[in-house]
C-alpha cells in the first residue's frame, strides 16, 4: 500500500487511511442524512426497549385472606355492582369494633362474587348469597366466608328462604317458577311453577318470601300486582292476593298481619301507573284490612320491621317509620336524606334484629364504593363506612 505522506505508519496503518479516505467521501453528507440515521436508530432503540419490557411484567398471585367473624354479631352487606360488569362484592361490618371488611368473598375464595349480587340469607352457619345475573347461589360459611358450595343453573334468582334442613326456596325474576333445593346438600330437588299464561306480560316474577305456619307468601313486582301463597308442605301454589301495582317488599308483624309496600309502576308503563301504596293483609284470611296511599311522585321501597315487630320502616327518599297500629302514613321522616340533587339518595335499608340499629345504604352514583350509615334506634348517627358498589342487602348474624 502506498504511503500517504504525513501519515503515521502503524499496525493499523492500512485501516486508518482507509477510514480517512472514507471520511473524506462522507464529508459532503448533509445534516439531514445524519438526522435520518439518528431518527432510525432512535426508532430501533425504542422498539428494542419495548420488546424487552414486554415480557418483564406479570401479575403476582394474590394471597388468600382468612377471616374470623365468630364471636360478636355482625352484618354482611351485599353490594350489587353494575349490571354486566361482574363487580358485585360482599362486605362484613363488625358493629362492636366498627370495622368493615370489603371484598370478603373474593379475598377468601380467590374468585369474584359474580354479576349483580341481589341478597343474602343466613341459616345456621351458612350464608346463601344470591348472585342474580350469574344465575347461581354461592354458599359460604358465615363465620369465615369460606366457599362451601353453590346452586347453579338458575335463570334470574332473587331471594332465598330456608324452610328446614332439607328444603329451601329461591325466587326468580324471569323463570316463572320457584326453585326448591336442599340447603344441606345444595342439590336442586324440584320447582313450583308460577307461570301465568293468561297475561301478555311475563308473569309471575317472584321476589321476597314471608313464612307463616306452613305457608310462604311471595310478592310479584315486575309488571304485576299479586302476592302468591305457597303451601310449603306440598310445594303447591294455593292462593293469590291482588294488591297495588308492583309490590316490592313485605314484612309480617306481631299480629300476623302481612304488610306489602308497592311502588305503583311508572309513568308510561304498559302495565299501568298508579300511586304507590301500603297494604295490611291478614295472614290467616288473606283479606286486605287497611290501605294507605302515597303521593303521586313518591316511590317507597325497602319495607322493614323492628325485632319486636311493632314498628315499620321504609325508604321514600328519606327513612320513615310508623307503628303497626297507625291509621295514617307518617308526616315527618325519621331520618332525613341530605340529597337535594338529581341523583343519589338512600338506596337500601335494614334493621339490626339484635339491637334495633338502622342501616342505610347510599350508592352515591352507583359507580363507586357506596356508603353505609348506621343510626341507633332514636335516629342518631353512630357510624358510617365505605362498602362496595351499590350496597343493596344486609344479612345479620344473630347467633
Amino acid at each position, binding site marked *: 500500500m502506498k504511503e500517504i505522506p504525513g501519515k503515521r505508519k502503524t499496525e493499523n496503518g492500512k485501516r486508518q487511511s482507509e477510514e480517512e479516505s472514507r471520511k473524506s467521501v462522507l464529508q459532503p453528507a448533509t445534516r439531514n442524512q445524519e438526522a435520518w440515521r439518528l431518527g432510525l436508530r432512535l426508532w*430501533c432503540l425504542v422498539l428494542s426497549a419495548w*420488546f424487552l419490557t414486554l415480557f418483564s411484567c406479570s401479575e403476582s398471585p394474590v394471597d388468600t385472606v382468612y377471616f374470623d367473624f365468630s364471636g360478636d354479631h355482625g352484618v354482611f352487606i351485599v353490594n350489587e355492582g353494575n349490571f354486566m360488569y361482574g*363487580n358485585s362484592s360482599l362486605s362484613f361490618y363488625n358493629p362492636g369494633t366498627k370495622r368493615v371488611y370489603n371484598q370478603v368473598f373474593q379475598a377468601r375464595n380467590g374468585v369474584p362474587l359474580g354479576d349483580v349480587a341481589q341478597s343474602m340469607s343466613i341459616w345456621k352457619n351458612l350464608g346463601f348469597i344470591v348472585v342474580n345475573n*350469574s344465575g347461581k347461589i354461592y354458599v359460604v360459611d358465615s363465620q369465615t366466608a369460606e366457599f362451601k358450595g353453590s346452586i347453579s343453573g338458575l335463570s334470574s334468582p332473587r331471594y332465598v328462604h330456608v324452610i328446614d334442613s332439607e328444603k329451601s326456596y329461591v325466587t326468580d325474576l324471569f323463570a*316463572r317458577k320457584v326453585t326448591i333445593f336442599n340447603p344441606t346438600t345444595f342439590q336442586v330437588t324440584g320447582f313450583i311453577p308460577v307461570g301465568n299464561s293468561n297475561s301478555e306480560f311475563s308473569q309471575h316474577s317472584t321476589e321476597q318470601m314471608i313464612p307463616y305456619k306452613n305457608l310462604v307468601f311471595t310478592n310479584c313486582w315486575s309488571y304485576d300486582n299479586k302476592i302468591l301463597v305457597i303451601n310449603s308442605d306440598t310445594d303447591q301454589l294455593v292462593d293469590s292476593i291482588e294488591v297495588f301495582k308492583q309490590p316490592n317488599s313485605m314484612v309480617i308483624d306481631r299480629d300476623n298481619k302481612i304488610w306489602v309496600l308497592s311502588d305503583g309502576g311508572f309513568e308510561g308503563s304498559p302495565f299501568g301507573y298508579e300511586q304507590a301504596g301500603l297494604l295490611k293483609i291478614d295472614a290467616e284470611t288473606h283479606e286486605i284490612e287497611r290501605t294507605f296511599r302515597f303521593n303521586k311522585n313518591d316511590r317507597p321501597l325497602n319495607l322493614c320491621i323492628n325485632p319486636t315487630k311493632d314498628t315499620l320502616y321504609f325508604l321514600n*327518599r328519606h327513612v320513615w317509620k310508623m307503628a303497626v297500629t297507625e291509621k295514617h302514613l307518617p308526616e315527618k321522616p325519621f331520618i332525613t336524606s341530605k340529597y337535594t340533587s338529581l341523583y*343519589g339518595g338512600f338506596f337500601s335499608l335494614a334493621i339490626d334484629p339484635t339491637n334495633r340499629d338502622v342501616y342505610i345504604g347510599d350508592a352515591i352514583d352507583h359507580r363507586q364504593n357506596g356508603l353505609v350509615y348506621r343510626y341507633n334506634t332514636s335516629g342518631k348517627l353512630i357510624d358510617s363506612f365505605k362498602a362496595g358498589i351499590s350496597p343493596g342487602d344486609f344479612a345479620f348474624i344473630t347467633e
Partner: protein
Amino acid sequence: MKPIKRTHIRLGFKIILCSLFIWSFADDLYAQKLTDTISLHEVKILGKRKMAEAALHITHIDTLELKMMKTLTISELLSSYSPIFIKSYGRGSTATASFRGTAPSHTQLYWNGIKLNSPMRGDVDFSLLPVYFIDDISLLYGGSSIKSGSGALGGSVLIGNKPDWTDKLSIRYIQTVESFSTKKEYLNVGFGNGRFQFKTRLFSDDSKNDFSYFNYGVLPMHQTVQKNAGYSKQGVLQEIYTRMKSHFFSAKLWAYQSHRNLPQLMSFEGDVRKETQDDQNLYGVVSWKHHTQKSKLEWLVGVNLNDINYFRSSTEAGFVNFDSRSREHSYTNQIDFDWNPSEFLNLNWNINSSYHQVSVLDRAQKLGYEHNRFELSLLNSISIQASSEVSLSLLSRSELYDNHLIGFIPSIGLEYIPEKWSSSSVKLNLARNYHQPGLNDLYWLPGGNPDLKPEDGYTGDLTFGYSYKKENSNISGQLSGFASLIENWIVWQPSANGAYYWEASNMKKVFARGLEIQLSVQKIIAKTILVNLKGNYSHSATSNLNAVPSVDESRGKQLIYIPKDKANIFAQGNFKAWYVKVNAPFTGKRYTSSNNVESDYEKVLNPYWLINLTAGKMFEFKPVRMDIAINIENLANTDYMAILWRPMPGRYYSITIQFQYKK
C-alpha cells in the same frame, strides 16, 4: 392465571431485534428509485382542496395502511392507526370509539358525506364496517370537525369511496381461513372506462369464535372454551360512477347484515341463555357534482336505514326475557357550494337537511317509543391565505333540530408554515361545539328526559407537524396537544326519587386534555429492502368535575373505561416479493369505577400490549397477481381483558390468499 409460554418467542424476538439494529447502522447512501406495488388512485387537483383544508386539523390514513388491514374492520384500523380508542367487546363484537376521551356519541362518522351515527344512541358500531368497503379515510380532530357537521365533540371520521378511472376490468378475490372456525371471503369486480365505472364488492365473515381460555371467575377455576360467541356477517357494496365534461355523477349502495351470539361473563353459571343481536344496515347515496374552474357545486341525497334486534331467553325455561326491535330511518339532502374566487381565498357553503324516523319496541317487556325528528344545518366557511406563511379558516354552523335552534357554532383555525422550513407547520384551532341529545336520551321509556339540553363544549388544540421527503426516504411526524371542557354531558343515573329505573340528565362537567404523537418513517435500504415504521401515542386524561354531594369521590377522576394512554407501533419490511409486518397496539389502564379505586380485588383493567405478526409473498403470473400471507395474532399469548370479566383469545393464526386480475 393463564401460563404464558415465552421461551421460543424470546428467541424469535432476539432475532428480529438484531435485524433491526443492523438496519439502523446500515450504510445507505445510494440514490434509489422507490419500487412499490401500490396502485395509485386518481389524485384530485390539489389547489382547491388544499385551500379548503388549510388550517384544519385533518389527517388521512393512507392507502398502504388500508391495504394492510383489508380483511379487518374499521374498528381495528382506527385502533392501530389513529389516536382514537376503540372499546371492543371481543372478536366480531360491538366496537365503539372514544376520541380524545369523549363518549362514543361524540365521534361522528360520515360515509361519502352522510352521517352514519345512530339517531337513537348517537354512536356508531365500528365493527360493522369492513375496511374492504372503503377507499379512503380521514380524521377531523376537535373543533375542525365542524367542517363536516356539528356534535363531534371529540372529532369525526370521514370514510369514502372513489372511482379508479384507469380500470377496464378488474377482479379481486381474497379468502382468509382463521382459528376458531373462522372464514372470510371478499370478491371485488369492477369494469368501465374513462367515463364510466361500475364496481361491486361482496364479503362474508363467519366464525364460531370458540377460543379456549382459563376461567378464573368461577370455582373451581378451569380451562374452558368460549361458548355462544359465534357470528356471521355478509355485505355488498355497489358503486356506479360517470363523468362528462364538468359533471360527475355517482351512486353507491351499501347493504350489510350481521348476526351475533352474545356470550355471558366468565362468572356466569346460570340456566343456559340465548342472547343474540341482529343488525341490518342499508346506506345509499347519490351525488351529482358540477365543476368549473373556480367552483364546485354538489347535490347529495342519502339514506341510512338500520334495524337492530336484540333477543334474550333462558333456554331451559324457554321464556323470552327481551325481544327488542329498533328501527331507524334517516334521509338526507345536502347542497354544497365551494368557490375559489382567487388563489388566496376559498368559500364554502353547505346546507344539510335530515329527517329521522325511529321506533323501538320490546315485545317481551312491552316497552318502546316512536319519534320523528327534522334537522337542518347550515355551514359558512372561509379559508384565507393571509400571507405566504399564514392561513386562516373560519367556520360557523347553525343548527335547527326539533324546535331548538343553536345559532352559532364557531371554529377558528390558524396555520403557520414558515417559509424557511416549508415542510413543517403549526396549527391552532379553537371552537365551540354542541352535541344534540340522542333520541333515546330524550324519549326512552322509562327514564328518557325530553327536557335535556344539548351537551356543549369548548375545545382547543395546537399541532406541530413535520415532514421530510427524499428520493428514497420519507419521515413525517405530528405532535398535538388538546383541551376540552364539556358541560351538560348527559348521563344516565338511578332516579332520584328511588325508582328502580335510571334517568337521563345533563349531569356532568368533564374536562378532557392530552396529547397525541404520530411518527412515520419510510426508507429504502440496499435498493431492495423497503422499511416502513409507524408509531402513534396518545395520552388523554378525562375527568369528572362535578361531584355533588361531598361523599362523591369521583371528582377529578378518570371516566370509566377510557384509558389515559394508548399507543401503537408498526414495522414492515419488504424484500423483493416478500414482506414481514409487525403491528403492536398498546392499551393503557382502564378504571371500572368512578372513584378509580384500585386494589387486589377491585378490578382495574390492566394495561396490555398485543403483537400481531404477518409474513407473506406476492406472486406474479401476468395478468394475475397472487398473494399469500400467514398471520399470527396475539403472538405473545397475552392474557388480557378489554371488558371486565370477558375472556379474550390467546394466540391464534390465519392464512390469507389473494388473487387479483387487472386488464
